[in-house]
């Protein structure tokens, strides 16, 4: 799963700390999300999207794995 968190954070002029506080998570979680090292739960995806005022699918891009 890819996401546009870094891009949206820059557009909204938010630091990782600020986004973490607004989404109610630790800063490390935002770092891991940006690096693609963690796929969030539906609730966290919703909370992060809500900070940017966007829908979940506008922030998180799900790519189906080809087997």
């Amino acid at each position, binding site marked *: 799963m890819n996401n546009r968190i870094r891009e949206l954070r820059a557009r909204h002029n938010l630091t990782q*700390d600020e986004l*973490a*506080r607004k989404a*109610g*998570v*630790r*800063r*490390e*979680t935002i770092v*891991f999300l940006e*690096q*693609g*090292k*963690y*796929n*969030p*739960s539906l*609730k*966290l995806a919703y909370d992060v999207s809500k900070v940017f005022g966007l829908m979940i699918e506008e922030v998180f891009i799900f790519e189906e794995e080809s087997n």
Partner: protein
Amino acid sequence: MKKAILAIVVSLLVLTTTVIWIMYAGSVSWGEFLQYLVIFVLVIFGFFAAWRRLTSAKRGEPAEDELSKKVVQKAAALSYFISIYLWLVIMYLTDKLKVETDIMFGWGILGMAVIFALSWVFFHFRGIRNE
């Protein structure tokens, strides 16, 4: 905050007990020296865990969130799995080297703690993907 204080108290208790143990040990063998070293590493890990929680509280972040909980869960599951093999090795060595039972348990418990700490570090830096 409560868990941070608990981690500090437990680490201090372990440290105090180890210092008393060292004071009354007399001559120290290599095996005992290695045990002290492992205990000190675990105490440092305990203080580090407490420090992480306290700095998070200072920054206004939650002490735990879904990622940190998942990292602990995954580390616990992996360390449990590896610990089974650790006990198997310890039992085999105990039989071969005729080690006393209390020493065997000491190494087993220390080994489990080290495996958990390493598993936590592994998942903390690698992250949890595709779940």
